[in-house]
């Protein structure tokens, strides 16, 4: 009997309730809404667990080379760090600083959702496995934790984009769009899981996305 496991939330599809491959192509994980593609046959390791460092090409970690948007993310991260310590004054100062860097960041030109798909593929095939191998080698379990969440959320983004390509805006017309404020997991649907399928935080930490930008 074969079992297929969701690589995002761990949900298991048991055969012989049906042959996995026969599930409709628009079938998604009932817990986290990952597409069929994100499932793997258990015990066969479709995705090799062996991690190899593909490249140690160093990009400079010098702050001088950071883009405004990266600096903005650094500042919102630090603001969160202050909030957790109940240092609200410092948090506000960092939030303002982050807003400044977000504002001066140039907008992407002539981009579309397909550009995202290409970067996501590169993340999943290259960047994340590479970083995971390096973090394993350095025995840095904190970094590995971030990478595990990162990979799962990236898979969900991939699933959502592939569904969007087929279904268009209809996929979230009469339903909620939620983002987990802890790990970035996106849920589109009416049955928000009790806890985040990726980071396991209770669902009151999710933010519901209201409205939408008409144009930027």
């Amino acid at each position, binding site marked *: 009997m074969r079992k297929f496991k969701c690589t995002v939330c761990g949900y298991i599809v048991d055969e012989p309730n049906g042959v996995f491959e026969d599930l409709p192509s628009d079938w998604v994980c009932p817990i986290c809404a990952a597409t069929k593609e994100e499932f793997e046959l258990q015990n066969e390791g479709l995705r090799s667990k062996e991690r190899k460092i593909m490249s140690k090409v160093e990009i400079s970690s010098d702050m001088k080379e950071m883009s405004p948007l990266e600096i903005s993310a650094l500042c919102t991260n630090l603001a969160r760090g202050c909030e957790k310590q109940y240092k609200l004054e410092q948090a506000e100062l960092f939030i303002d600083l982050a807003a400044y860097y977000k504002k001066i960041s140039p907008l992407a030109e002539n981009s579309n959702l397909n550009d*995202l798909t290409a970067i996501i593929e590169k993340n999943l095939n290259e960047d994340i496995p590479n970083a995971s191998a390096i973090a394993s080698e350095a025995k840095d379990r904190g970094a590995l934790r971030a990478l595990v969440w990162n990979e799962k959320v990236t898979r969900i983004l991939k699933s959502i984009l592939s569904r969007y390509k087929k279904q268009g805006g209809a996929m979230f017309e009469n339903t909620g769009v939620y983002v987990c404020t802890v790990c970035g997991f996106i849920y589109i649907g009416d049955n928000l899981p009790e806890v985040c399928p990726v980071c396991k935080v209770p669902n009151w930490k999710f933010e519901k996305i209201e409205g939408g930008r008409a144009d930027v």
Partner: protein
Amino acid sequence: MSEKYAVRNIKLCTKDCLCLYVCPTGATNTENSIIDVAKCTGCGDCADACPSGAISLIPKEYPPQQPKAQAVISAMNTLLRSKSQQEKIAASLPGKLAIAIEKSNRIMAEDLIREAGYMLPQSKNTIEFLKLILVQDQSQEFPKENVEKLLEIFNKEESEKMSNNKTLENLMEAFAGESQANRKYLAYAKKAEKDGKTNVAKLFRAASDAETLHALKHFEVAGKINSTADNLKDGIEGETYEYKEMYPPFIEQAKKEGNNAAVMTFTFAMKAEEVHAKLYQDALNNLDSNQEVFYYLCPVCGNIEKYVPEKCSICNVSGDRFIKY
């Protein structure tokens, strides 16, 4: 353990208000629900009493952050760059989904950079970063005053931390100095007695006792006196270090230099410290025993026995000279 203060997570608070009943200073009772740090003594009674687990105690000073390998930082930054790129693309697209993707990528980017060495806002890395953008970014809209304010807060915290540490260092240095003076004056007092200078001997003895008072107080203020069990463990550690690591090379060196008196005093001390370590361990094992024990000190080499020996096992002095404790 560092000093702590209480904080309330308002999202978990169920307004049972037990914290108001138990707080000895009224720090928990405020119009904005934020516990008053200035009043909080860090006793923890509110956290213990809270039925919802909404109150926790957090330290005033945080430990230094775990070091990060350069290779990990680089790999995390590569991925960070990619997430920011995705945020940028999503930010240029219309629709609810684009907003969700933009936010999701920002959250992932934050997590990556946190694990690339920017976890604690008040850490050295952050301070360096703030200093850098201050000199680097001179555009009109740059919120310079924010950065200056943050640096001012963090530098103040840092200097408070440093000054606390410096005082502790000073206390221990004074403890060492006073302890030495105590023994030194005792040695001088003995010499004065031998020379028949009774008045000087008395002064040295009084001064020696005065230094003991100072040393004991410094040691206490430095917070070095713990439970008796912990104090025994500390004693074992100190004595073991001396007989295993400190004295053997001292003895070797004294032999090389032909200083036989030093060889002897070091050897007596080394052997006696080993006995002391064993006796401390023995006392630790029998800490709860009510049976009275007597100790006998060899006045020549510092050996301690639990019975009067015929001769000292270290220096051979006759047992009848041992001093009972």
